[in-house]
Structure formats: structure tokens, C-alpha cells
């Protein structure tokens, strides 16, 4: 698949602060690509350099073959973005904002449609300054999509949205991808990344520490799978130690057992239990989640104190 966005060895410094030390990743045309990472890891810096809103110090950046440093206007015509930190004039009304942005960037669907889509129909004549935080956020995402851009950059789009708003946002982002656009999504929500991202990169301290599909990132970090079940206290479970892939078997006084290991552990343990006449009804496998992998990846980061234990 063609490359939509390419970032190679991006560096950006602010005086002594290194915002991006060495960021590299590629986004394929038509995928939803996630950027994850602790606060201050350089996500916003990276996506704003891509839009030519900040000037990268070093590295090679390309958006559909255009360099945001030499052709920022060209890049911005292809990109619709929701910035993490931005605003509109306080007295500008919702309807006026959508109309203005669709005039600046013609070619999208009628802006009135976006108003309804984002549940802002009742706020059409409300001034930006009078909107609630979540309504502002909805408006920003609506503005990012109004011109039907080829690349959509969303920097923490669901922060501040209520659960219904998040669902709306997720569905719309998928719809945007299904229309053929590429999405670069910065998020702190692992469920969002898991649900939406085709691939993702994790940034720590201004560098990429992992890239891949959510499943690949999980697999690279957390090999271990846990299987739990309950049997009569004192049952002998020694036979499980010889099952392929099992690393450890623990049992507490109440008969609750916990088997850790790798591979298709649930099937193998289940099989072994049945063979030994044990049929616990609460047999469950716990696969590592993206959150486990993320915590493991970011454990050493000074911005995430106390995660060493959590990730280990």
C-alpha cells in the first residue's frame, strides 16, 4: 500500500528541551494510525511538525509526497486536523465557524450535515465562548472533517467527550477511513486505540519504542497469558507443570488456581484438566491487553511514575 505519511528521524528542540529526539514511522494510505505515549513524549510536536505548524529541526517529513517544511500550504490543503490546543474567536457561532471553514476549504460535504452528525444542531447559533468543553471538542472534530481531507490528524479528539460523544467520534473516524482517507490519531485511551487503530506507534521521551498492529505490540511486550479457575482446595495440580507452554502454577487456600505461560494456554490447560477429571466452570484465560503492553513500554519514563510495578 502507498505511503501517506513518512516521518524519518524527526528532531525538534525547544532550547534545552528535546521534544522529539528521533521519531520515525510510516503511515500507509487508508489506515488509521495511532500515536500513543506519556504526557510530553512528543506526540503533539510530531503531528504539528507534519502540518508545518512547527518547524522540524532535523529529519525527513513527507505527507503524500509533500514536505511540510517547504510546502506547508500544499500539505495543509490535504490535511484536516483537530489540534490539541486551539480555539476559535469567542464570539464566533458554531454555524458560522462551520460555514467559514467549509468556504476556506471547499470540496467537502455540506456543512449543515456536520452540524447534525455531531449533535450540534441546537448550538448552531451559540457562540464558541459559550460552548461546553465537550461541545467545543465536537466542533473541532467536525471542522477537521468538514473539507473531506485525504489525511485527518486528530490530537486527543475524545478527551472531554461524554461516552456517547466518544462512540459518535469512533464511528465517524471509521467512516472517514472507509471513505478512503488516512487517519493519524493521537490518544491516551487504550480502548480507543485498540478499537480504531490498524497500526500504532508508542512514543517515549521523544522516540518511538514500538510500532505495529495493536496485536503485534501486545505480543512483543507481553508474552505471558494467564489462565484462572477454581478447584476443590488441596487438589493436586502438579500435572499442569508438564503442559506445553506453562511457566508457573499457583494455588491459594480457597482452591483458586492461576497458571501463567505462553502460547494457546487456555486450550491446553483446559484439555489437561478434563483429562484429569477436573471440569471447573469458571475456567478463564486473560490475554494481555494493549494497556499492559503500553505500561510495560512506558515503565521507565519519568512522566509515568509508579508504573514500574504496574508494568512488570
Amino acid at each position, binding site marked *: 500500500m502507498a505511503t501517506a505519511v513518512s516521518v524519518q528521524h524527526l528532531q525538534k528542540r525547544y532550547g534545552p528541551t528535546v521534544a522529539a529526539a528521533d521519531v520515525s514511522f510510516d503511515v500507509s494510505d487508508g489506515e488509521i494510525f495511532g500515536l500513543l505515549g506519556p504526557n510530553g513524549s512528543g506526540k503533539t510536536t510530531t503531528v504539528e511538525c507534519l*502540518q508545518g*505548524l*512547527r*518547524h522540524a529541526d532535523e529529519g525527513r517529513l513527507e505527507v503524500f509526497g509533500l514536505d511540510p517544511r517547504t510546502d506547508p*500550504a500544499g500539505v*495543509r*490543503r490535504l*490535511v*484536516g*486536523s483537530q*489540534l490539541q*490546543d*486551539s*480555539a*476559535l*474567536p469567542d*464570539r*464566533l457561532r458554531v454555524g*458560522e465557524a462551520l460555514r*467559514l*471553514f467549509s*468556504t*476556506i*476549504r*471547499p470540496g467537502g460535504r455540506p456543512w449543515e450535515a456536520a452540524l447534525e452528525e455531531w449533535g450540534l444542531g441546537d448550538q448552531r447559533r451559540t457562540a464558541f465562548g459559550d460552548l461546553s468543553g465537550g461541545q467545543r471538542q465536537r466542533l*473541532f472534530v467536525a*471542522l477537521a472533517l468538514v*473539507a473531506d481531507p485525504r489525511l485527518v490528524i486528530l490530537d486527543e479528539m475524545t478527551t472531554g467527550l461524554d461516552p456517547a460523544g466518544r462512540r459518535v467520534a469512533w464511528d465517524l473516524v471509521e467512516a472517514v477511513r472507509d471513505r478512503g482517507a488516512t487517519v493519524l490519531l493521537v490518544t491516551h485511551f487504550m480502548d480507543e486505540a485498540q478499537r480504531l487503530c490498524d497500526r500504532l506507534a508508542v512514543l517515549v521521551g521523544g522516540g518511538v519504542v514500538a510500532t505495529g498492529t495493536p496485536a503485534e505490540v501486545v505480543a512483543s511486550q507481553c508474552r505471558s497469558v494467564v489462565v484462572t479457575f477454581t478447584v476443590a482446595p488441596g487438589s493436586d495440580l502438579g500435572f499442569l507443570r508438564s503442559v506445553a507452554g506453562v511457566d508457573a502454577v499457583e494455588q491459594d487456600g480457597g482452591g483458586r488456581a492461576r497458571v501463567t505461560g505462553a502460547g494457546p494456554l487456555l486450550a491446553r490447560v483446559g484439555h489437561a484438566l478434563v483429562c484429569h477429571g477436573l471440569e471447573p466452570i469458571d475456567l478463564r484465560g486473560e490475554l494481555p491487553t494493549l494497556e499492559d503492553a503500553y505500561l510495560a513500554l512506558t515503565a521507565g519514563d519519568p512522566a509515568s511514575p509508579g508504573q514500574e510495578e504496574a508494568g512488570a
Partner: protein
Amino acid sequence: MRALVAVTATELRLFSREPMTVLFVLVLPVVILYVLNGVFGGQPADPSVWEGIGAVDFYTSAYVALVAATVGVLTVPVHLAGYREQGVLRRFRASALSPVALIGAHVVVATCVATVGAVVVGCVSVVAYGALTPQDWIGVVAAHLLCAVSFAVLGALLGLVLPTARAAQGLGVLLFFVFVMLGGAGPPSEVLPDTLARVGDALPVTYGARLLRGPWLGNGVDLQAVAVISGLLVACAVLTAWRLRTDDRL
């Protein structure tokens, strides 16, 4: 172009929603005009002050220039610095609206507002205080436009350089008072102490007033004033362009 028109229309609408600013820009000069005419009005031309012309004729051009200068150094920088501070500028920039178009819109809005203000002040002067009507209409309109655009661009530059809307407001109010007191809109420079008169001579608004006064009274074009105001325009435009080019965080 289409974007410039859309943004200008929007900015005009936004400006009309700020009653206090409108009041300040349009009503204050009229009030001061009223006060000063109460004090000096009707004084016959006296060769030792007001460049030897009647007080009303002197002040009318001074106030028309003052309105343009006030819109330029007070409202434009406050708006632009606020936009930059809050991230509005970035928001617009990210959606492919060039900052030049946004600044252009502010310059157009400022010029429109200054024009309304000039008409108000001019009418009040002529109708209520018997000032001369402009002798050379084309010259007056041209002088006014040059003056309004130059001060608006100066304002845009201040808006891009000053860190916050508060700072812009502070400096704008300060400049406003300096302009009023020393720029020919207050006591005549002939009665000011020497140093203050010299400060007045260094203020652009002084030249804006002289620029208007020539054609208004039918005395021809004050070339020095044209040079100073045009120089101001070019210098501010160049510095604004440089600022847009170099500042990462606009």
C-alpha cells in the same frame, strides 16, 4: 481570495458584536472633540498656535487621523495577540488559511472601522463646529486610506510581537494617550515643552494628521508626511512578513 473575503466578512461581524470597542473607537474622539472645542472652539486663527489655522480646522484632521491610529494600535493588536495566545491563529493556519489572509482581513476591518469613525468625526466637526469641508476630496480619501492601512499594519505587527492580549491592550492604551496628548490631538505642539513637542514630532499620528490636513484645507500634499506614513507602512509590512516567517508558534 475567496478565503480573504469570507474571513473579512466574519471578522466584520465579530467586530460588530463588541459594543464596547465600537463605542471606544467611534464615540471617544467625538467626546474629546466636543471638550476641546468647548475650550478652544471659535478662537480665531492665531499665528502662534495650530500652525496658524483655526482650532477647529486643526483638530478635525488631527481627530480623523487619531481614529485611524487608535483602531490600528489598539483594536488590531488586541485581537491578533488574543488570537495567537488562545490558538485561534494556529487553528486557522492548520485549515490552510494563510496568516496573511487573516491579517489582511484585520487590516480591511480596521480600515472600514476607521472610515466610519472618520466620517462621524468629520461630520460632527463640519456640522456642529463649522469646520471647513474637505477642499480636495480625492486627496483626503487617499490620505485617510493610506493612514488607516498603515496604522492597521503597525497594529498587526504589534499583535504578532506582543506575547498576550493583555500586553497588547496595555501598550495600545498607552499609545492612545500618547497620541492624544502629543500627536496634535491635544494641546497644540507650540505650547508644549520642547522635549514633549519633539516627542510629538516623532509620532506617526502627527504625520497622519498633516497628511490629511493638506488636501483637507486645500494646501496641497505634505510630501514629508506622505514619506513618513508610507515608510511606516513598508517597514511594518516587511517586519510582519519576517515575523510570520520566523515565528514557530503563530
